[in-house]
C-alpha cells in the first residue's frame, strides 16, 4: 500500500466537485440526482479510505459506509418516486419548471 492517503482524499474531493457541478448545473431532475449519487460515492470513498488508513480495527468506518448505502438507496427511491409523480402531474422533469413553491 504505497498510495498515500492524500491521493484517495483528492480523488474523493474531485469526484465530489464533479458531482456538485452536476447538481448545480443540470436541468433534468434525474440528472441532478445522478450528481447527488456521485457526491455520495465520494463521501463513501472518503470514509473507507480513512477506515483503512487510520484504524482498520475500528469498524465504525465501514459501518458508516454501510449506513450511507442504505440512506442513499432510500433517498434515490423516494426521490425518483417524487420525480415520477411530479412528471405525471406537470409533464415535466426540468428542475427549473418545478417552481411552484416560490414567493
Amino acid at each position, binding site marked *: 500500500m504505497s498510495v498515500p492517503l492524500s491521493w484517495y482524499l483528492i480523488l474523493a474531493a474531485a469526484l465530489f466537485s464533479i458531482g456538485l457541478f452536476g*447538481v*448545480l*448545473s443540470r436541468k433534468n431532475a434525474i440528472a*441532478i440526482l445522478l450528481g447527488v449519487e456521485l457526491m455520495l460515492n465520494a463521501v463513501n470513498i472518503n470514509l473507507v479510505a480513512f477506515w483503512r488508513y487510520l484504524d482498520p480495527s475500528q469498524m465504525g468506518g465501514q459501518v458508516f459506509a454501510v449506513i450511507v448505502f442504505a440512506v442513499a438507496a432510500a433517498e434515490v427511491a423516494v426521490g425518483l418516486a417524487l420525480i415520477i409523480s411530479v412528471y405525471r402531474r406537470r409533464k415535466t422533469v426540468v*428542475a*427549473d419548471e418545478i*417552481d411552484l413553491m*416560490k414567493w
Partner: protein
Amino acid sequence: MEKYIIWLLPIPPLISFFAIILFTNKRKAVSHGIAIGAAGLSWLGSMFIFIRALGVKEFGRQIFGSSINWLPTGSTWLKVGVQIDPLSAVVIFFVAWTVLAIFIYSVGYHNFGQPKGDHDVAGLPPHGATISEHGQTHSVPSIEPMYSRFFAFISLFAFGMYTLVVSDNLLTLFVGWEIMGLCSYLLIGFWFGKPSARNAAVKAFMTTRIGDVFMLLGIAFVYSFTGSLSFSEIFKPAMLTALSSTPAFFGLSAAGIIGLFLFIGTVGKSAQWPLHVWLPDAMEGPTPVSAMIHAATMVSAGVYMIIRMFPLISAGWTEGMPLNTTMSAIAFIGAFTALFAASIALAQNDIKRVLAYSTISQLGFMVAALGIGAYVAAAFHLVTHAFFKALLFLGSGSVIHGMEHGVLHTGEHTDAQDMFNMGGLRKKMPITFWTFLIGGLALSGFPVLTAGFWSKDEIFAEAFGKGHIVVFITLAVAAFLTAFYTMRQITLTFLGEPRTKAAEHASETTWTMTVPLIVLAIFAIGFGWVGIPAQFPFLGGHIANWFHEFVGGTLTELPQEVGFSWVPLITSLVVALGGLFCGWLVYRKIKSPQEDFLQIPVLKNKWYFDEIYDYVFIKPATWIAEKFTSLYMDQTVIDGVLHSVARFSLFLGVSFRTYIDKRVINEFMGDGTGNVVKTSGSGLRKIQAGRIQYYMVASITVLVIFALLFYFLVL
C-alpha cells in the same frame, strides 16, 4: 280697583287673536263668537271705567293709573303702566263702541251663513255661489273663505288700539301704534290675491313707516332729555319749562323739535299731507277694515297722540301769544290738508274713496285745531268724527253689499262701488239710507241736530276767536266743499232713480249690518249735545258744557272757553247748509260722469302726488337698489372680490394638488415608496424562485465565500 281693570282692557282681544289663529281657524261661528265676545268684554270694561271716571270730581287731577318698574336702567327704572285720564276716558268710550259695532258688522259683511262660493279662493273677494231653489238657479253672495282670519286680525288690531289708549308712557303707546301699523298692513292686504291690494298694503306700511321713524327719533330725544317716557314725568311743569328753554337743532327748542318729530308720526299715521297717499289706496281692504282703521281708530290714534302731547308742543306758549314754530307747522299742515283733500274728494266716483279723502280732510281739521291751541275742540271733533265716519264707512259697506246683491242678480260685471252706477237706493235700502244720511249731515255739520255741527263749530269759533284768520278761512272753504261732496255722494247714491239694473235689484242688508249702523247713528246725533258751549244763543247754558270741563281737565290749567261770536256761527251755518243745498241742486240732474263738470283731471288724479312721489322717490330708490347697489356694488364689486378670493383659493388648491400633492406626496413619496418597495421586492423575490439549483448555487457560493473569509481572516 279701576286701575286693575284698565290693565285688563286690552287683554280679551289679544286672547281672541291667539285663540282664533291657533285653535278655531276652521270654525267660523266659533271664531266670530270669540272675537265679538272679546270685544264685548273690553267694551264692558271700558264702559265701567268711563262711568266711574264720570263720577270722580276733578278727574283730571285724580286719574286712574298704575305703573310698574319694567326696565332697569342704571340706578333707576323705566316705568310702564296704564292710565285713564279725561282725554283717554272719552277716547276709550268711542273706541269701545266703534270696535264692538264694527266687529258685529263684520259678521254680516263677510256673509256669515251663506254657502261657500263656486270659485271662491282664499285671497280674493268672494264671488257668489249658485244655489237652486224651486228649480231656479240664481247667485247669492258667498261667505268669505278667510272668515276666521279676518276676525283674528281685527282682534289684534283692537288689542293694539286699546294698548295705545290706556298706556301712560310713550313706549307702550308706540307699541300699540306699531301693532296697528302691522294690522293695517295685514288687513289692507287681506285679499292678497289682488295685486292692487298687495301694493296698497305695502304702500300704507311704507308711508306710515316714514312717519314712525321720526316719531321714534322724537321718543328717543324725549328719553335722552328727560330720562323717562311716562307722561306724568314729561308733563311736569318744571320739565316742560326745561324742554322749551333748551335750544336744540334748527333754531327750535328741545320741546319744539320733539313736538315736530312726534307730529311727523301723526302726519304718517293720520294721512296728512304730504304722507296722505296711502289712505285712499287703503280702501282696497274690506269695508269694516276701512271703517275701523281709517275712520274710527287707527288714524284717530295719530290725532290722539298729538293731542296727548299738547303740553309738550305748546310748552312755553300760552293763550294770546303768537304760535310757536311747531304749532304753526301743525296748524299749517292741518289746514292745508283739510282743503287739499276736500278738493280731491269732489272728483272721486268710488263711494269709499270719497269717504277716504273726507277722512283725511277731517283729520286735517282736528290737527289744525290743535295747532292753533284749541285742545278741547280738537278732542271733541276727534270723538264725533269717529262716530259719524265709522257710520258712513259701514253704511257705504252696506250700500256695496246691496249693490253686489243686485250685481249677482243681473249677472253683469257692474262695479258695485261706483256711485254713478247707483241711484234710488233709498227705496231699496231704507235703514242704510237714513243712517247714512245722518252720518253725512253730521259730516257736513248740519246745525244743532248732528254732533258734527257742534264740534266743527267749536273749531271755527276757536280759529276765529284766537285771531287765526287764514286758518279760519281755509277751514271754512274746506267745510263748504265737505258739505258739497257729501251731498253729491248722497244724491248720486240714494236719491233719484236707479241708473243700472244692479241698483234696481239692490236689497237691504242683514241685521248684523244694520243694527251697528243704527247704534252709531244715535251717537252721531247725540254726542254733540255734551259739548254745547255756554254762550251759545238760545241753547247754550241749559246743559253744562260737560265735554269742555271734563276733557279740559286733562291739562294742568283748564283752558278757557272762547268767547262767543256770531261770525264763526254764521259762517258754519252758511257753509254747511249752502254746501248741502248746492250739492243736491247740482247732482240731482247729473246721471253720468261725462256730465259731471267736476271730473277735472287734476282733481281726479289727486293733484298727481302719487306720480310725483313715484318720480322723485320711488324711481331713484328703485334705481339705487337695482342698479347701483345690486348690480354695481353687490354683484360687481363685492361678488367680484369674493369671486376673486374664491378663484385664488381654487387656484391655490389646484396648484397644491397638482404640484405638491400629486407630484411630491403621491408620486414621489406615496407611489414612490410603493414603487421602491415593489421594485426591490420584485427584485428580491427572484431569490425565492422555487428552483432548487438556484438555492443551492447561492448557498454554496456563500459557503465558499465564508470559507475563504474564515480561512484568511481567522486562521
